[in-house]
């Protein structure tokens, strides 16, 4: 059983002050009418427990834009290129939903296996991740179809659960343990743990029953040329919002950005849903239509990643469903995958 502490409401403000001493505090707040993760001002309080933020907090580790290299004006002077130093500021990411935390083990494999990505790795190393058990699953949640759950602590260093008059704080990783050991909190007792267990059970009950997606990679094997991809893409306007809001999508572009006194080589989010994503210099495009791009998005998440690293590229947060401007629902596409007959694929419409 993991170590656990009791955080009564009366100690909450002092605890937040302790977190701020640990590092920059990033937590959900309202900004410009949007519930989202942001860096908190010194006197600002996090707004915990209001459900999922519209966008995932993946930018904390993998920002939408970041300089990788900086260079001076004389662009031909290659020796002048300098590594943009990865952000080494210690930070605390507070109030992460379990589904968002669950995306981190997959992103870790992408960015830190084989070639080590120093930018992502620095932020991972310097960020303490404190998840908050989900108390309000919604109709678009399907974490439980992917083996997750409202109190799943994978990817988090610590897990908070709301209990009567405060929180239960469970330590998950050694980093979480050593941080919590210095916070001067009282150990939780059996009653606190029991309350948390009950809260977790209540949240699980709120989830709509759903068929597990385990093993769907086997089902996808014979469906590469199935008409279902074109059907899924019919309404799609290729805006890419699903990928931007997804906590797991990690495709990026690298571009050089000229500035007044030099320039930067910048990495920015990119998306398989865009026609330009794979187009060759010759004009040839291996994924020539939106059906092929939908197929890539589903195959990457549910077939290629399981084959390569044994993890799905989806945590079931449902953001791609709630943010889609034409109401495309990945669950319906996955249902179509389940129902699909491989022999229909031989007609090959994509």
């Amino acid at each position: 059983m993991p170590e656990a502490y009791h955080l009564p409401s009366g100690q909450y403000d002092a605890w937040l002050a302790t977190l701020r001493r640990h590092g920059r505090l990033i937590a959900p707040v309202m900004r410009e009418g949007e519930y989202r993760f942001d860096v908190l001002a010194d006197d600002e309080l996090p707004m915990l427990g209001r459900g999922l933020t519209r966008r995932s907090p993946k930018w904390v580790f993998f920002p939408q834009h970041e300089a990788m290299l900086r260079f001076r004006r004389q662009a031909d002077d290659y020796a002048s290129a300098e590594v943009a130093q990865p952000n080494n500021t210690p930070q605390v990411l507070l109030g992460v939903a379990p589904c968002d935390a669950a995306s981190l083990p997959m992103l870790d494999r992408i960015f830190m296996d084989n070639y080590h990505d120093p930018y992502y790795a620095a932020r991972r190393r310097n960020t303490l991740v404190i998840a908050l058990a989900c108390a309000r699953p919604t109709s678009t949640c399907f974490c439980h179809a992917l083996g997750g759950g409202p109190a799943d602590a994978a990817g988090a260093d610590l897990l908070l659960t709301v209990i009567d008059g405060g929180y239960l704080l469970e330590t998950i990783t050694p980093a979480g343990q050593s941080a919590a050991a210095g916070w001067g909190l009282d150990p939780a007792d059996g009653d606190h743990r029991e309350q948390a267990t009950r809260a977790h059970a209540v949240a699980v009950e709120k989830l709509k029953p759903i068929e597990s997606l385990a093993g769907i990679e086997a089902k996808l094997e014979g469906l590469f040329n199935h008409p279902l991809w074109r059907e899924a893409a019919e309404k799609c306007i290729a805006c890419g919002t699903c990928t931007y809001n997804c906590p797991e999508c990690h495709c990026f572009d690298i571009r050089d950005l000229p500035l007044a006194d030099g320039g930067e080589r910048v990495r920015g989010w990119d998306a398989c849903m865009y026609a330009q994503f794979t187009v060759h210099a010759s004009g040839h495009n291996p994924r020539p239509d939106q059906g092929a791009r939908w197929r890539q998005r589903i195959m990457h998440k549910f077939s290629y990643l399981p084959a390569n690293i044994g993890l799905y590229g989806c945590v079931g947060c449902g953001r791609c469903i709630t943010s889609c401007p034409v109401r495309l629902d990945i669950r319906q596409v996955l249902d179509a995958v389940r129902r699909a007959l491989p022999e229909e694929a031989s007609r090959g419409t994509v």
Partner: protein
Amino acid sequence: MAPCNCHNPYLPYPMVIRQVTDEVEDRSIKTYDLAFRESADAEAFRWQPGQFCELSLLGVGEAPFGIASSPAEPELLRFSVKKAGVVTAALHRLKAGDQIGLRGPLGNAFPLELMRAKNVLIIGGGFAFTTLRALIVSLLDQRADYGDITVIYGARTPGLLMYRSDLDAWQSRSDMRMIQTIDQPYVGWEGQVGLVPAVLEQTAPSPSATIAIVCGPPIMIRFTMPVLARLGFENQQIYTSLENRMKCGIGKCGRCNIGHKYVCLDGPVFSMAELSALPPEY
């Protein structure tokens, strides 16, 4: 002091261009011989034929290119660049003495170990001869390790054949067979005339204990594969090198995949046996 390249795979080595050569008559391809600016970088850089690098221009961007020289050529690091986009157009404006960046070597290599003591059949077309040049130089450097070496290389016109002086030198060797061919008769051309698949059929190399490497435009590959099959080659004896759009070159940016294989990490060299198990997404 320059930051250490070893821990940041996105930081290019600083290079200087030693020489720029027009490679073909329509001036669409230039060949660049590069040198490392730091001797430590040169020491650390080890590659095998078939691998590629990202050439990098500050303020413009990066693009991947196969390494056209062999590790058996001391002090030579060569790339041939066809003008076809923003980065390549900027590259074509560079001259000897200019600086450039390089990331790599990236990807896998031709299966030299597998070729040992076997016959090697190399089939190339047009611009896709860069890493094949590196391969041929490496094979000839350790000539005794391999059986018969046959090279069939075709282009539309004599002036579009790359590495003419190498081709002529190989043509005059008695320990290999070098067949140059052009698509149609051409004044002054005394070599073979005919498309690569036809010349292959006519040459009829034996598939026995032979590894075939095929690199060329998609149309050439499409018509060459059935000929190899008719000659008795099995998919696991045939290798090719693929190109897909890529950015990072290190398996992270997510755009060069063919099914679950990444051209930048698992390729660019694939056997036809591997490719036949993957979707045709290239």
